[in-house]
């Protein structure tokens, strides 16, 4: 995200709208005002023309009626009007036939006088025309019929200069332009500052998001605000709280799943153990039958009693180990030996593996650094890996258990010579409930739980496999003390 870009985009979009609105408003006002100004000019011109035409009409009526009038009375009227009104450029009086009755001596005339006289004489009422003359000067021509009822004495045409009103329009245009530009600039500046404030708040939120500690669930404090940004902050805080709660719920669920998986592992063990326990029991029973059948054979009785003792001891040992594994204990880290833990688990699964004549080769490095781990959890991981390896190999197959020490870590490798794992499944095998076994043969949680445990212990669990060439699962755990003499593996 580019905040300056976002700020610029918003400013450009909103600014365009503001500028457009200001321009349209200014233009609307200008056109409306100009309309009023021109109308006012026309009304004024018609009023002046009407006043002039009254005097002219009286003079023409007197002349029409044959009364004596001062010589050049119309010329005097024209001179008087033009002297009193400096905006008049020309006055022309036409008779009903279009002939010239009188006119001012100024040569400048408006466009009206370029029309046919018949057009002017046919005008039913006062008219105005604004146009340019031949020299390009703007003139307002007013034509005033000298008419009473249907009796016509001709028309009066008066030309007023119109440059003044154009100057006024231009002046108001630029004044309004400056004003609207200033208002627009102020609005854009305010918008820029406001955007900076809003985006600054978002940047603060982004910083806070970056600083969230997902391990502890700590959300850095954000300033209190009562606006929408404040609501966003509150939402972020609530999201952090829900995240913490979800993490707690997830951890609880994981523990339950781990326990369920352990019980499932016990179930799987039980089938093997039943065979291991039943064998000695059947042996003991046969020994008892044999002793009962020949109580006097002391040599045989002593031999069978030894066999019975050995069988019962074996059964008791198996049961003790099973109880020790299945019992749910408090999780706690302690320095433990990876070799010892591996040996314990191997003894637990030995019966299961031997039943299928699977040979286990132990390659445990001596003087292995201890690791900080929970014994029960680590046993569960190793057992999962060994059972998976046992399930992967054919009867009579081979499993190699190897431990190695590095400078700061110890490594446990469980290698089998089974069919291997296809490349496209290697990324999925650690997913919860992913399994390639038959239904009822596995929960699909073993590797997922194992990965979670190892990661919780600060280690890694990886797999390397080639199809048809078996698979190797490697557990790497940080050493609780540096290895004195080994390089990192």
């Amino acid at each position, binding site marked *: 995200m*580019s905040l*300056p*870009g976002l700020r*610029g*985009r918003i400013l*450009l*979009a909103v*600014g*365009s709208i503001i*500028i457009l609105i200001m*321009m349209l408003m200014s*233009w609307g006002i*200008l*056109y409306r005002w*100009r309309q009023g100004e*021109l109308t006012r000019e*026309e009304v004024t011109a018609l009023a002046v023309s009407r006043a002039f035409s*009254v005097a002219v*009409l*009286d003079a023409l*009526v*007197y002349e029409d*009626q044959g*009364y004596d009038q001062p010589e050049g009375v119309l010329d005097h009227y024209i001179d008087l009007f033009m002297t009193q009104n400096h905006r008049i450029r020309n006055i022309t009086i036409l008779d*009903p*036939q279009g002939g010239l009755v009188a006119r001012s001596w100024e040569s400048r005339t408006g466009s009206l006088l370029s*029309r046919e006289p*018949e*057009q*002017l*004489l*046919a*005008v*039913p009422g006062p*008219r*105005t*025309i*604004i*146009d*340019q003359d031949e020299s390009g000067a*703007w003139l307002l021509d007013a*034509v005033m019929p000298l008419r*009473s*009822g*249907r*009796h*016509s004495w001709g028309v009066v045409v008066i030309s007023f200069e*119109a440059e003044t*009103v*154009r100057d006024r*329009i*231009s002046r108001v*245009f630029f004044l309004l*332009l400056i004003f609207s530009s200033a208002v627009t600039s102020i609005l854009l500046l305010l918008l820029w500052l406001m955007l900076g404030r809003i985006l600054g708040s978002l940047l603060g939120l982004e910083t806070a998001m970056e600083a969230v500690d997902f391990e502890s669930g700590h959300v850095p404090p954000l300033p209190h605000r009562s606006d929408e940004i404040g609501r966003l902050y509150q939402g972020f805080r609530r999201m952090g709280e829900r995240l913490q709660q979800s993490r707690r719920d997830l951890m609880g669920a994981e523990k339950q799943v781990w326990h369920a998986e352990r019980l499932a592992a016990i179930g799987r063990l039980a089938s093997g153990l039943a065979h291991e326990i039943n064998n000695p029991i059947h042996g003991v029973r046969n020994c008892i039958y044999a002793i009962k059948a020949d109580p006097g054979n002391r040599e045989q009785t002593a031999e069978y009693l030894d066999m019975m003792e050995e069988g019962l001891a074996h059964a008791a040992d198996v049961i003790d180990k099973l109880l020790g594994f299945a019992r749910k204990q408090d999780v706690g880290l302690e320095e433990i030996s990876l070799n010892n833990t591996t040996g314990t688990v191997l003894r637990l699964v030995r019966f299961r593996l031997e039943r299928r004549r699977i040979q286990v080769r132990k390659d445990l490095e001596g003087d292995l650094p201890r690791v900080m781990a929970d014994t029960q959890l680590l046993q569960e991981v190793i057992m999962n890996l060994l059972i998976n390896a046992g399930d992967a190999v054919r009867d009579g197959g081979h499993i190699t258990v190897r431990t190695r020490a590095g400078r700061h870590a110890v490594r446990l490798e469980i290698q089998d010579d089974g069919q291997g794992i296809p490349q496209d499944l290697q990324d999925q095998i650690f997913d919860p409930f992913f399994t390639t076994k038959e239904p009822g043969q596995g929960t699909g949680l073993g590797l997922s739980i194992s990965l979670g445990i190892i990661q919780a212990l600060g280690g890694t669990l990886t797999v390397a496999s080639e199809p048809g060439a078996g698979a190797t699962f490697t557990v790497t755990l940080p050493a609780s003390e540096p290895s004195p003499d080994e390089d990192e593996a």
Partner: protein
Amino acid sequence: MPANLKPPLLGLLAAALLALVVWGNAAIHADLMDIRRENAPLPTIQAEGPAPADSSQVVRVGVVSRFAPNIIYRLYQPIMDYCNAHSARRHQLSLSVSYSDAARRLRTGEDEASFLGALMCSRLPRDSELEPVLIPLNADGGSEFHVALIVKEGSPIRSVADLAGRRVALPSQKSFSGMWLQRAGLAAANLKPSDLDTLQHFKHHETVVWQVLRGEFDAGVVKESLARRYRTRGLRVVTLSPAIPGPPLVINRRFRDEAVDDLVRLLLALDAGNPADRRLMASWTQEFAYGFRAVDREEFLSLFEDLLRNSGEAP
């Protein structure tokens, strides 16, 4: 706007916007400065010129120029237009400077008819060749008209008797309006002209109204129709004169011909009860807004008889 808009593109858009604003304002300024316009297009038809100047077809109707010529024409020319519209002859106004001048034009045949003052007409000798043929009707269909004593709104004058020591404006002394107060009105209130501070005649009735409204005279006498027209502009009517006939249309019996008869017929045909005629006459002088009726000399004089007798002037 695309989300990946980069600052250089923003700059281009901003520059385009600025260019658009500059161009738009320049175009608007140019358009604003082009103020070319017509408030209404000029007609393209041929002007309706006056009728050919054929003196044998012209009927001249005299009017005493009591107002400025353009006002006289505004009030009386529509009557001529009406006649012209219904006749092959061309009727035109003939302005006279006085009632005497109008009577002279009738006697000499310069004018075929003339609207004369009622008082002057009443003073014509019985054997005069001039005779009234039409008198105007009032709003009620009668032929009586009044003159009014007017004062400015707020004046303490409530009757003719209150005029003692006051300045009074009157129209032409040859009109009934100018004569009534001196001959009859003051006498009825036991006053003489000398009891007034000032008694001055003016040429036009409007002049009397303006003198009173300006406060240069305390009271004045004008036609009732004019007094009513100015009532809303600060005038108050104190009293009215006895009824007299309105200004008659007078002709010269010696020159009476078909054209005159045609004029009389046209004016008599007007009917104030006819909405079309009523609308037509609304723009005429108020005295003729309700049409005319025929009258002869004897009836006309009989209408004046009592009034003239009361004013000490024998019919």
